[in-house]
């Protein structure tokens, strides 16, 4: 039997990896995947608690997150396609013209 604590630790590790990925990687697609990783880390935490308290609320939230993540992926990938067409690259640091 896997304890709740183990689930939570795994979720924290996954979330940290995702966060680090968003911050240090310049490739937009990698960053995008890191964001997905963070979302799923949160999903894992939700499920762990749902099981811990024996309630379905957490599971319902996970469905929501997955739906929104799918929509977000569609929009995000479209943006990345446009960005690569414009800049001939997916380097996020090259898309820095929106500033003071």
């Amino acid at each position, binding site marked *: 039997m896997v304890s709740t604590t183990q689930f939570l630790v795994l979720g924290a590790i996954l979330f940290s990896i995702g966060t680090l990925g968003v*911050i*240090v990687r310049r490739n937009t697609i990698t960053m995008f995947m890191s964001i997905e990783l963070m979302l799923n880390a949160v999903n894992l935490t939700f499920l762990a608690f749902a099981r811990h308290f024996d309630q379905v609320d957490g599971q319902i939230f996970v469905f929501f997150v997955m739906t929104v993540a799918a929509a977000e992926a569609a929009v995000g990938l479209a943006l990345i396609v446009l960005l690569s067409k414009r800049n001939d690259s997916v380097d*996020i640091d090259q898309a820095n*013209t929106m500033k*003071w």
Partner: protein
Amino acid sequence: MLETFWILLLFPLVGAAINGIFGKRFSPGLIATIGCGSVFISFAIALLTFFELLGLAPADRAVTNHLFTWIESGNFVANASFLFDPLSGVMILVVTGVGFLIHLYSVEYMRGETGYYRFFAYLNLFIFMMSTLVLADNYLLMFVGWEGVGLCSYLLIGYYFETRVAGDAAKKAFIVNRIGDFGFLLGMFLIFQTFGTLEYHSLFSTVAERFPAPEIGFGVLSGITLLLFLGATGKSAQIPLYVWLPDAMAGPTPVSALIHAATMVTAGVYMIARSATLYSRAPESMLIVAVIGIVTALVAALIAIAQRDIKKVLAYSTVSQLGYMFLAVGVGAWASGIFHLYTHAFFKALLFLGSGSVILAMHHEQDMLKMGGLKKYLPITWATMGVATLAIAGIPPFAGFFSKDEILWNSLVSGHGHLLLWVAGVLVAALTAFYMARLMYLTFYGKERFSHESHGHHDDHDHHHSGPPKEPSLFVTLPLMILGVLSAIAGLVGLPAWLGDNRFEHFLEPVFHYAYTGDGHQGEHSHSLEIGLTVVIVTLALISIFLAYRFFVKNPAIPERIAERFAGIHKLLWNKFYVDEVYDALIVWPIERISRFVLWKGIDVGIIDGAVNGVASLMQGWSNRVKRLQSGYARAYASWILFGAVLIFLYYYLAN
């Protein structure tokens, strides 16, 4: 007309509106017709109403026209309603009657001026405002007229606004008047605070009820009356606020005649006579009014002796005569003050209009030392001005004799009178005769001191040609002749007691019904004393005229020698006692300096602007630093979000 006399106010207002708005496209004839016609209709209505008033019993002679409630707030009520009683009746007849004659005169005098329509619009507006002032039945509405005439005076003094002198004089008149108005306003506040009403009739009956005897020492009535008197010194050019009137001569001559001699400047006297109920219960204020009046009369008469500009002499003469009126109301001789106001309106308007005629003939030369010998060129002007001079000098039986005699007699025998007031008054009478005779002799007699070819500067009156001076047309001479007749006979309505009945005084009596008369009662004085004093005064006036004749016609060298002998005094008089300079140094200069260096450069620029600009530049400096946060790098934003999340987490973690 008694029920609807207020419509007389409408005509000048409508005339002013029509001429002011559309006048630019009208022909001069149409403008003049509208301007004169509207005032004439007002005069006719005033005359009809006046005769109807005469038909009533003396006690009933106060008719009110209530138009509408103007302001109502709490227990404060001010009505737009107008009162026609003997006092306002006399005033409205003077205002519209003399006003009409001066409008008529202006038709010729102002011909060819660029702002012809503007002039008549202002003049009509003035008649409207002045009528409001004298017909109002409460102090607030009177104040509307009071401010309105001040505005018109400003506009008309500054009629030649292209010249700096006229603009400055207009501003001076307005600002000095504002000081007085401030007193008037405070006086009104105090009246309302104390008695709860500003309406004449209810106010005066309340005052009479609450103050059966005059107050002793300095009380609320003294406060009210002195504040109102401050207003009067501004409007009626008395010490210490008389300085604007001589400068006001920068306006066109008809304006000087109408506003600065006959009507507006007498508003202060009217106001005090109207407030007789209050003044008669404040003996301290009465004394101040009388003393200020006689001192002003004396100072102005002295200054008038040394002036060379014909209009300046008349201006100081006006100040001096107004001083007489204040002397009269100051000793409680309300009717005598109004009587002098009424005779003065005729002869002083005539003198100004006559001087205007001279100035026209001399092609805008005003220096009397450059005139002389004009009698044969301007016979009508000479004759009418001669009548007016005799009237102002107090020679019987001309108008000024009766009114001046009344004032001097009352200044001696009334309860508030004093021998010193009488002596100073007689001195002023002698000085008046002297400077007026000087004006006449310098202008109309002696050698011609002008050349026929080029008179003064060129002007834009293309109907004046060089050549010998000649009398202007009937538009100018007709008002002169009418006023001449009035100056001669107007005094006969107020004969002194030893000659008959003073009908003028009896007519005005109901107006002063509530005024306190207790111990101010004139004791029994023999007619022989009054006759004796009158003879003294007239003899002095005749001697003065004779002296002026010796000085300025017979032997013109004498005045010069006297001026040299007493160079110091002459310089003092010529420079008008340096009052303007003293005011400049004591009041204008400090205010200007404080305004410039403290209020403007210190408070306005330093503190107010400094605060506004300081806040702005502080924000700018901060923003310049903070804006770097928005670098455009998405990963930096992500780091900031992480940083924020960590902070929040730490906060809750440490808080527990």
